[in-house]
C-alpha cells in the first residue's frame, strides 16, 4: 500500500466524532460512503471561485465551469477505461442511470415476446425500472436464480437455460449490496453477447471498490452512484457504448440536449449531450472527478484488498465469537459487505442498540425485498466496510454484537 494510505482517516473529518458518547464506527458504507476533505474542498472551491452555468456561456467563469465539467467527463472515461469521454453521461445516480437505459433504449427496442433477464439478487433500482418497462412494452421478466443456501452465489449452471435468444437485455448487479457477492461480470457479458443480448451492469457497489474496466468487462451499459464512491450525493453516471448512445432517442427533454428547437419539433444534440437535459449538477460532477483522483491515488487494487481483508476477518470473528449469528454471502472472495441475522433479535433492535455504542449499522431489507423472502428473512443487519475502516472497528463490532446478543438472551 502506498503513502496515500498513511493518515487516511484524517482525510475524513466526519469520522472524528462521538455518537452517543462513543467514538463513531461507521459501518454503513454500502448505503453511502463518507467524503474526503479533498472532495468537500472541490465543492467549496467551485462555489467560491468558478460557479457559472456551463456550455452556453463564453464569459470567464462559464468557461472555467465548462472546462472543469468536461474534464470531469474525461476523468470518468479514464476511470472506467471507456473508449472516449462521449461514452459518459452524467446522471443523478445509479437509479437514474438505469431508468435512462430502460426508458430511452427500452421503449424503442423491446416488444412483446422479448425477455428482460435479471438476477434474483438485484437491488430494487435494477428491478423496478424493468418491471415498468415490461408493463409498457409487453416484454417479460425472467430471473437467473441464486443457489440454495446462504452463500448467495448466482446459479451459473442455470445460465444457459435462462439466457436464451429471446433475451434482449440482461441487467445484473456487479457486487451485491446485501450478500457481498462479486459476480463474474465479464463472463456474464460474454454469455449475453453470444445470444445477442445487451448488458446493463449495476456497478453501484463496485465502482469505487474494485478495479473496473468497462472494455475488459465487455458490458454495454454500466450504472454508477457518486455517493457510494467518496463523491457527493445527487450525482452519478451512465457508461454506454457510443454506438448505442448515438442510436438511442433522448430521455428527458429540455435545454442543452437539443441541436435545434422549433415550436412543433426539435432535433437532438449528439450523445452525451442528448441525455443531459437542463443545467447539470455541475459542482457535484466536478467533485466526483476529484473523488476518482482520490481513489486512484490509493489504488483500486489496494482498496479491494483492504475491503476483502476486513470482510474476511469480520466474517471469521463474528462466526466464531457471536452466538446465534447467521452470516449471509460467501466466506471468501467477497466485497466489504457483511449481512447477518442475529437469532431472536430483530435487525432494527440490533441497529438501535449498536448505535448506542457508536457503531453505525444498517438493518432492513436493503432494497432487496424479493431476495430477503427467498432467503426466508424479512430483514438483516449489515456491516459494510470501506477504505477508512480498520481492524479496531471490527473489535468494536464484535464486542457490540456480543453485548446485544447477551442483552436479548438475558
Amino acid at each position, binding site marked *: 500500500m502506498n503513502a496515500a494510505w498513511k493518515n487516511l482517516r484524517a482525510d475524513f473529518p466526519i469520522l472524528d466524532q462521538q455518537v*452517543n*458518547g462513543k467514538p463513531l464506527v461507521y459501518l454503513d458504507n454500502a448505503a453511502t460512503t463518507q467524503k474526503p476533505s479533498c472532495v468537500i474542498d472541490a465543492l467549496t472551491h467551485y462555489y467560491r471561485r468558478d460557479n457559472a452555468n456551463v456550455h452556453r456561456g463564453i464569459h470567464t467563469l462559464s468557461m472555467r465551469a465548462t472546462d472543469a465539467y468536461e474534464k470531469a467527463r474525461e476523468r470518468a472515461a479514464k476511470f472506467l477505461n471507456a473508449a472516449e469521454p462521449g461514452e459518459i453521461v452524467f446522471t443523478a445516480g445509479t437509479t437514474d442511470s438505469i431508468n435512462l437505459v430502460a426508458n430511452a433504449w427500452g421503449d424503442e427496442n423491446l416488444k412483446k415476446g422479448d425477455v428482460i433477464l435479471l438476477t434474483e439478487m438485484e437491488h430494487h433500482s435494477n428491478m423496478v425500472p424493468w418491471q415498468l418497462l415490461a408493463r409498457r412494452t409487453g416484454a417479460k421478466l425472467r430471473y437467473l436464480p441464486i443457489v440454495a443456501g446462504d452463500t448467495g452465489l448466482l446459479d451459473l449452471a442455470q445460465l444457459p437455460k435462462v439466457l436464451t435468444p429471446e433475451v434482449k437485455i440482461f441487467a445484473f448487479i456487479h457486487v451485491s449490496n446485501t450478500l457481498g457477492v462479486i459476480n463474474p461480470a465479464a463472463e456474464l457479458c460474454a454469455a449475453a453477447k453470444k445470444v445477442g443480448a445487451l448488458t446493463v451492469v449495476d456497478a453501484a457497489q463496485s465502482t469505487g471498490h474494485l478495479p473496473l474496466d468497462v472494455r475488459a468487462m465487455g458490458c454495454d451499459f454500466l450504472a454508477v452512484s457518486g455517493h457510494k464512491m467518496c463523491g457527493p450525493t445527487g450525482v452519478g453516471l451512465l457508461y454506454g457504448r457510443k454506438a448505442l448512445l448515438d442510436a438511442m432517442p433522448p430521455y428527458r427533454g429540455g435545454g442543452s440536449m437539443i441541436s435545434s428547437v422549433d415550436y412543433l419539433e426539435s432535433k437532438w444534440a449528439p450523445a452525451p449531450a442528448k441525455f443531459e437535459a437542463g443545467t447539470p449538477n455541475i459542482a457535484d460532477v466536478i467533485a466526483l472527478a476529484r473523488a476518482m483522483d482520490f481513489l486512484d491515488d490509493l489504488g483500486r487494487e489496494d482498496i479491494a484488498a483492504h475491503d476483502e481483508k476486513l470482510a474476511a476477518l469480520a466474517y471469521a470473528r463474528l462466526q466464531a465469537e457471536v452466538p446465534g449469528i447467521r452470516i449471509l454471502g460467501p466466506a471468501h472472495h467477497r466485497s466489504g459487505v457483511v449481512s447477518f441475522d442475529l437469532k*431472536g*433479535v*430483530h*435487525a*432494527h*433492535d440490533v441497529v*438501535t*442498540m449498536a448505535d*448506542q455504542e457508536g457503531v453505525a449499522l444498517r*438493518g*432492513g*431489507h436493503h432494497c432487496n*425485498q424479493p431476495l*430477503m423472502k427467498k432467503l426466508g428473512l*424479512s*430483514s438483516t443487519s449489515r456491516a459494510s466496510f470501506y477504505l477508512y475502516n480498520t481492524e479496531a472497528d471490527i473489535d468494536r463490532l464484535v464486542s457490540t454484537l456480543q453485548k446485544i446478543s447477551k*442483552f*436479548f438472551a438475558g
Partner: protein
Amino acid sequence: MHDLTELYQSVILDHNRRPRNYSVLPAANRVGSGNNPMCGDQITVYVKLEGDRIADVSFQGSGCAISQASASLMTLNLKGRTIAEAEAIYAGLHKMVTTGKVAEDDMSDLAALAGVHQFPARIKCATLGWHAALNAAKGDATPVTTERTSD
C-alpha cells in the same frame, strides 16, 4: 446517551419473547394489516367487533421488539373496549411515545413504551399495530403503511 434499558424495558423484552394473543382469531369479523416498508415490519390484526365494542383482538407478524411488544400490549389493552375508548387509549399512547409524557390517567403496562420517544426512528414501530387495529375496527380495510402516517 440514553439508557438502552429505558427503551428495552423488561416488559418489552418479555412481550417480545412471548407475545400475547399471537394467533389467528377464527371468530374475527375484521382484519387489518400494516407494514413498515423501510424495515420490513409486517403485522396482521384480527378483531372481533360486537356493536362498537372490540370483543376480542389478536395479531400475527414479524418485526422488531418494539413493534411486537407494542402489538402484544395493544391486544391486552383494547380487548373489551369500545372504539371510542380504544381511540382514547391510543391517543394517550401516541402522546407518550412522541413526548415521553405518561398520561395522567394510569397507562399501566403501556408505560413501558415511554422510552420510545427518545428514539424517533422507532416511534412508527410502536404505533404500527395500533393503527392497524383501529383501522380494522373502524372498518377501513386499507393496509396501514407507516409512510402514510405522520408518526
